[in-house]
């Protein structure tokens, strides 16, 4: 395969870059070792920052957030819920930070309006009686999956190619240029090679590993952040704790749920990470200081992501490391067609893509200007089904009794699975259960896949999407993935649910036992 630009990493930066380049008429291939947003792009709050959170720690990042947040609200409104946000201090919080906050916002040009605590509690009745200060800001929420899927879909319409489950294994250099990139299809084991004029390393937390394959060095620090999802949405707006950025100080609504977080735990590797019980307990206790009902509400799942931070300023707290982004050309490693884009935030992904595309285009001799700053992001079918409530409302509107609901919790019918499978198959990859889960609400409700996993698997067999013994591996993989998020939150109702899940999938289906699986030959 040949292309002008090979992009490594299918997160929000990689897919955003693909769109940016495609709109400038540049051909590109995105390779992703797992699936869209498998790393930090999927492991975050989905908070579109007004910038106010960083006024104290990183004013430069705060200004970038302010500008990009406003742009995205205009250009990708279908991915965003313009909730507005509050900064809330409760008894015991640092009075100096509270007093300095409006001034710091003003210096960054970030609007913030002082509210009386009573007024704040009228806006958000779940807030604690201990609120001592409140400010209103322009925070919003964004669906990161929709964002990346839409960026990718638009790029594909303009000729870009996406290869999922495809991992880089080696770069072949000829002098100062990488000529060929060797890759492997992680599902089939098939080797692939791609010749590209320019290569962009947008692999997030894996940027150091990818750079190392090219003989370049990026010193990375892996900071894990965990988040919790509640069963019901607890606030209308984004709630930030009014204090120096710290653990468990953000509560972000996301459709029908709320997302709490986060933590900052140094990890050795970004590959195998779990939200841990201590983190989860800390988040609940801290968040309950602001919204007391969070102490007793039902939690559906936890998840985590690794912040790919570069060069921390102080060892003790990785939050000191800049959240701004870094573009490296690796010229000191003797490379002239390899760029790494690291760091940054979900809110500033477009800007990161733009700056990267500028360098790549300059090197390619392409003079087309960036258009993502002015052209709205088109909404795509691929990304349609991540939105809670959409599948059920269309299902009810059509009223087709033959279109059976496969997921009862989130009301996802067969027709939605059909639509997703079709769009995945256009993305050169298998329509696995986990991939369908990523692109829909399936498995995200209170049953966490107990029932819908097998219902969808059965349906995929009926459609001939699954064959031979594939379903067994699919079910195991899907339930394993869900379990990572269930495990730290298993008490009360969730524990009851998980016991049923184990009784069904291990007790009856025997998925815990090694089965004599049909081999490839049987297919």
């Amino acid at each position, binding site marked *: 395969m040949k292309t002008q630009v090979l992009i490594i990493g299918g997160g929000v930066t990689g897919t955003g870059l693909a769109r940016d380049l495609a709109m400038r008429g540049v051909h590109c291939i995105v390779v992703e070792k797992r699936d869209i947003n498998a790393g930090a792009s999927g492991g975050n709050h989905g908070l579109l920052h007004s910038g106010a959170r960083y006024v104290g720690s990183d004013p430069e990042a705060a200004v970038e957030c302010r500008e990009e947040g406003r742009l995205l609200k205009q250009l990708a409104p279908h991915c965003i819920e313009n909730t507005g946000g509050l900064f809330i201090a409760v008894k015991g919080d640092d009075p100096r930070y509270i007093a300095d906050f409006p001034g710091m916002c003003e210096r960054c040009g970030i609007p913030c309006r002082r509210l009386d605590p009573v007024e704040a509690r009228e806006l958000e009745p779940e807030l604690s009686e201990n609120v001592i200060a409140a400010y209103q800001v322009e925070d919003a929420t964004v669906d990161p999956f929709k964002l990346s899927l839409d960026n990718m879909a638009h790029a594909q319409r303009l000729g870009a190619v996406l290869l999922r489950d495809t991992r880089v294994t080696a770069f072949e250099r000829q002098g100062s240029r990488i000529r060929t990139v060797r890759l492997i299809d992680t599902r089939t084991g098939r080797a692939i090679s791609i010749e590209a004029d320019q290569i962009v390393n947008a692999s997030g937390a894996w940027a150091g590993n990818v750079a190392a394959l090219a003989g370049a060095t990026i010193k990375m620090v892996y900071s894990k952040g965990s988040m919790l999802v509640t069963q019901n949405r607890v606030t209308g707006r984004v709630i930030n704790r009014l204090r120096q950025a710290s653990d468990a100080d953000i509560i972000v609504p996301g459709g029908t749920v709320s997302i709490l977080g986060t933590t900052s735990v140094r990890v050795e590797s970004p590959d195998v990470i779990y939200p841990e019980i201590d983190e989860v307990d800390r988040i609940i206790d801290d968040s309950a200081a602001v919204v007391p009902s969070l102490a007793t509400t039902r939690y559906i799942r936890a998840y985590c992501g690794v912040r790919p931070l570069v060069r921390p300023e102080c060892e003790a707290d990785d939050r000191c490391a800049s959240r701004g982004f870094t573009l490296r050309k690796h010229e000191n490693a003797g490379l002239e067609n390899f760029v790494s884009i690291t760091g940054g935030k979900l809110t500033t992904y477009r800007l990161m893509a733009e700056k990267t595309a500028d360098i790549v285009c300059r090197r390619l001799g392409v003079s087309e200007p960036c258009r993502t700053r002015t052209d709205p992001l088109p909404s795509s079918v691929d990304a349609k089904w991540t939105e809670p409530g959409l599948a059920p409302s269309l299902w009810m509107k059509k009223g087709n009794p*033959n279109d*059976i609901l496969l997921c009862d919790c989130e009301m996802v019918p067969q027709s939605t699975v059909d639509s997703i499978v079709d769009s995945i198959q256009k993305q050169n990859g298998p329509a696995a259960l986990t991939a369908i889960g990523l692109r829909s609400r399936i498995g995200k409700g209170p049953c966490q896949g107990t029932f819908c996993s097998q219902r969808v698997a*059965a349906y995929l067999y009926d459609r001939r999407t699954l064959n*031979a*013994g594939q379903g067994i591996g699919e079910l195991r993989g899907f339930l394993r993935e869900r379990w990572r998020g269930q495990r730290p939150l298993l008490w009360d109702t969730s524990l009851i649910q998980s016991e049923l899940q184990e009784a069904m999938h291990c*007790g009856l*289906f025997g998925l815990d036992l090694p089965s004599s699986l049909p*081999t490839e030959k049987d297919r």
Partner: protein
Amino acid sequence: MNSTPEIQSELMVIGSGLTGMAAALFAANRNISTTLVGRPAEINFASGLLDLMAVHPVKRSQVWRDPWAAIAAMCRDNPNHPYARLNPDDISLAIEEFTCFLAGEGLRYRWRARQNVEVITPIGTTKPTYCVPDTMWNGVEALEGRRRGLLIDFHGLKGFSARQIAESLRHRIPGLRTIRITFPDSRAEVYPEAVARSLENPSTLKRLSREIQPHTGKARWVGLPAILGIHRSADVCGRLEAMLGLPVTEIPTMPPAITGIRLREAFEQGLPQLGVQTFLQHQIVETPETDGSGFRFLIGGDDNVTPVATRGAVLATGRFFGRGLRADRSMIHETVFDLPVCQPETRRQWHRKDFFDPRGHNISRAGLETDDRFRPVNQDGRPIYPTLHAAGSILAHQDWIRMKCGAGLAIATAFGAVNAYLKANPRS
């Protein structure tokens, strides 16, 4: 809320899952006046298969052909397992008595004396188990004989795909064919209970057989989801076999399932006939009182409470799904008497990071510790109440899901608990 006059009964059985139903049955068969309380919920999820013991040690996923040998090995390695408080003859007698009752209610079982068999699951794996409903036995033999067969599924029956089963079993039984039948008349969602009831109507069954007939070809057996009737499943299966001229087998469906309803209804009908006073719309509403010689329970339904005074009790409330245990963020509690629960020190140890970790989850082995008479004990190993017994999955030191011993554990410990009560309180 109305209060009704106090009921006097000798034994209270708390819980209406397999364990509670079994305990009430054993007590009634021994002329103990018995009251059963609890809303049946868990039993609706039963597959109808009666596991005895198939996997030991769990961490090596070793599947045993002979369940009795598995029990013996497990009791040697894990003398705290509830089975270790019973002798194999008693376990065997318990199963005999239990299945004999079910046969009387129209649910016949088959098994081989010293052998686990394999049953086809709705996802196309096979599961080792012991006693199998008569209506599923042909499937056991077809699997063993690798006989070519025809699998049927229905339009609109979620989570049951004949093609999934055939494809997944291709390496075990070659040449499985599948057809999908539109039943009764539409492609819309099919509700298993409605279909099961309608198939008890001979003319509906005849229509089904006519749909299947043209497709049988060289098939030597026909498999269908386990929705062939509720009260008369053996009858429905038998008539379908006669019409098709082929052995028919039921394949379990995803829970909640008809197989569970069959069990529930068998007990709901059979127990009162044996003299058991059942309160299946009631539950215990406050912590029972005790004066050393017995208990006083307050049980509540939708709009009334009833006091029940008994001499003894069997706690058969199950685990978390059955609501016998409840966990908050830091601890596991027993819900009726607040009995001490043997459990890991902190929540961090409850579950493994991998859902399918071959060792199983530690929380699964939490539960009540008892003496040899199945009486819950305190930290010193002394019984907490002289006439309170516990049975079934609430007991500690077992992992019924991974060991595949759920039904056996329920039935055998219910048998042990009732007999222990009887021995200490002999009939005059």
